[in-house]
């Protein structure tokens, strides 16, 4: 024996120290569902219809249906076509998904009749490039967009307002927030709404809370949409979450009845993480979630593993499965907010590669939460991307000529928006008799990075103020009046226009956002019309000119200077 047994090469040492080795990886265990999408334990596709009713689904007869089977059979699948389309060979459907000549409408029609196992059978035939090609065609809205998290580790409303304004200016179509101290919610939701409308009129805002409060803020018009309505792929996990498909379907109607846009949330890995995958692969169970969402009649879904991303991320082919689940949501004709919203890896290379299947083809919201604050301030436990990645993101968009929903904005414009947001919030707080925002705080907001750069608030006073917002029944309309009275006419007008949308219900349609002119843009008037090269959404014209801009680009005209 030589003595080299414990000696390591210098290269091994270097590799050992790479950030990727801080990530966790595990072997598959298909019997328990710890497997991405290729499992012998998933059922084979089957469907039988009798008297206009599905009586057999994926090898199970009606008497043995659990509640997911029942809900999917009775609400999600088109009974008239089920037997016909499920009989089509999977490879034909898979090829049609990739084939530019096959229309999106036809694939949607086929998709409406397929069983969960059949859908899995189809996507199992597709590699990640084919999944991306299919996503390019199947996503519901023609124009891709992005969403930001705007939160504060100290629940500081001025920070939330300033970062919301900057995020909106950089291009996010939706802004989402949540709290450390839940009682702060009304002030943070107001800050997000006011800040967002300063950055770009028409941005939609959301505050993730328990159902009753979230719904109440929505009903008051302080927030504009809701997203954190979780659904799960097995009956036992669904019940552990204290819900059923029927309770969630009812909740979906409750939101719509108040004119509020809403989407469900689900993702691969949640069931196995809770130990109740019933021996099914992660993707099979996620397909059941997607069909359940369609059956409930909700317009969209946030999926892409979301808070369980560490689970598919650790098994072979897991990120392919995550790409597939986003594709299936789109194929099932739902708006897809495609994850990339939780801390995923220590390795920057893995962080980017995980996002490419959504960023390259484009999705309705590439990130369902790009952190618009430093990750340390991210109260959703950190995102795959944060503010420190803005310039990288913009450069990747420019390199590959893809639209990830953001753009480079020059610092003076950003500072101006941040200041205006902080000033507008200062005025609204004063007008609504809420704890004062000082000029020092406004000044801090203009130049700050994270919550540590702001003076501490008087938390006691703020919480009293937050309570009084609820007690007094302050509504979105009160914010409009306060902004108008204090001279922020344009911001008031922006907010009123957003509020007016709930009377029309236009934002309830699939994948709806508001464009810069406040025109609702959904999968009806901006339907994806991709039909191969030269068709569909193309990054060109004015938008492409915008995305060519970066922080430092050497001028061709005068190479001694930079343009930005």
């Amino acid at each position: 024996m030589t003595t080299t047994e414990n000696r390591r090469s210098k290269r091994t040492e270097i590799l050992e120290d790479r950030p990727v080795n801080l990530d966790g990886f595990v072997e598959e265990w298909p019997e328990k569902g710890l497997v991405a999408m290729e499992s012998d334990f998933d059922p084979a596709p089957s469907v039988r219809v009798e008297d206009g009713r599905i009586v057999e689904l994926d090898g199970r007869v009606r008497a043995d249906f659990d509640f997911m089977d029942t809900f999917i059979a009775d609400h999600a699948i088109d009974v008239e076509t089920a037997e016909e389309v499920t009989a089509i060979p999977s490879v034909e459907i898979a090829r049609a998904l990739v084939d530019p000549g096959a229309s999106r409408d036809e694939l949607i029609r086929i998709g409406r009749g397929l069983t969960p196992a059949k859908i899995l059978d189809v996507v199992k035939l597709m590699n990640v490039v084919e999944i991306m090609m299919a996503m390019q065609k199947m996503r519901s809205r023609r124009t891709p967009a992005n969403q930001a998290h705007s939160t504060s580790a100290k629940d500081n409303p001025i920070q939330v307002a300033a970062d919301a304004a900057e995020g909106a200016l950089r291009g996010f179509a939706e802004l989402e927030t949540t709290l450390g101290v839940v009682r702060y919610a009304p002030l943070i939701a107001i800050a997000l709404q006011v800040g967002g409308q300063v950055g770009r009129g028409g941005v939609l805002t959301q505050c993730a809370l328990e159902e009753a409060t979230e719904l109440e803020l929505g009903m008051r018009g302080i927030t504009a949409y809701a997203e954190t309505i979780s659904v799960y792929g097995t009956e036992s996990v669904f019940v552990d979450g204290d819900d059923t498909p029927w309770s969630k379907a009812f909740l979906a109607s409750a939101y719509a009845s108040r004119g509020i846009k809403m989407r469900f949330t689900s993702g691969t890995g949640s069931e196995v993480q809770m130990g109740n995958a019933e021996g099914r692969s992660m993707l099979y169970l996620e397909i059941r979630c997607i069909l359940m969402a369609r059956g409930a009649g909700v317009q969209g879904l946030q999926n892409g593993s979301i808070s369980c991303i560490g689970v598919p991320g650790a098994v072979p082919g897991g990120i392919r499965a995550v790409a597939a689940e986003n594709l299936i949501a789109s194929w099932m004709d739902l708006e897809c907010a495609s994850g990339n919203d939780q801390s995923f890896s220590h390795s920057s290379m893995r962080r980017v590669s995980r996002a490419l299947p959504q960023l390259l083809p484009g999705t309705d919201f590439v990130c369902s939460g790009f952190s618009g604050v430093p990750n340390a301030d991210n109260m959703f436990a950190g995102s795959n991307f944060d503010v420190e990645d803005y310039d990288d993101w913009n450069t990747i968009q420019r390199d590959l000529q893809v639209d990830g929903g953001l753009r480079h904005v020059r610092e003076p414009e950003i500072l101006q928006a941040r200041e205006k947001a902080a000033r507008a919030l200062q005025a609204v707080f004063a007008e609504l008799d809420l704890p004062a925002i000082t000029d020092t705080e406004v000044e801090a907001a203009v130049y700050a990075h994270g919550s540590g750069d702001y003076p501490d608030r008087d938390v006691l006073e703020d919480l009293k103020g937050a309570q009084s917002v609820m007690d007094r029944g302050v509504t979105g309309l009160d914010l409009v009046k306060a902004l108008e009275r204090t001279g922020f006419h344009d911001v008031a007008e922006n907010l009123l226009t957003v509020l007016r949308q709930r009377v029309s219900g236009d934002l309830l349609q699939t994948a709806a956002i508001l464009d810069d002119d406040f025109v609702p843009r959904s999968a009806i008037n901006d339907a994806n019309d991709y039909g191969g090269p030269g068709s569909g959404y193309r990054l060109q014209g004015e938008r492409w000119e915008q995305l060519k801009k970066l922080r430092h680009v050497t001028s061709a005209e005068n190479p001694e200077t930079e343009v930005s």
Partner: protein
Amino acid sequence: MTAPAVQRTLSLKEIGPAQRGSRPDEVVVAVSPAFGDYFSKTIVDVPHAEVVRQILAGIEEQGVAARMVKVWDTADLAAVAHTGARLSGSGISIGLLSRGTAMIHQRDLPRLSNLELFPQSPLLDAEVFRRIGSNAAQYAKGESPAPVPTRNDQMARPRWQAKAALLHLKEYECIVAGRKPVEVEPVVSRA
């Protein structure tokens, strides 16, 4: 530091069916099916022998008695802990899963609630287990301990989420449905 490093092993000797305790000054430590059995260490390799030794030490230092119970028919932390609480003379228990996740529970609380929860198993070390034992004993005495500070690490997800799921599944494999909780005597020996 010259402190001698000693390896210890744990075995849980079955005594008989777990009974409801009558001493008002006891804490029941309830462990999951695979604890000190199929598994011998937590998700971050803290030996179960050390986990138990530190928890019991924390209880003993407060002058409170401890009993250990193995729960066989569930691996749900809240259910394990609540089973322990219902058997505890003081009503206070500590629930423990093999991967290290822990909870202080009380008999009168709803099952899904708790007094203190330590969900981030990768962040629990010997010192935290000692403090968990100490706090549980103080609750049993009717004192008001300051909650053990909980730690947080955003990057725990990429590193540990999948392994935690795997350990969870293994733990569930060890469940013996219908088997009642058993009182066990922890035997910690120097290896």
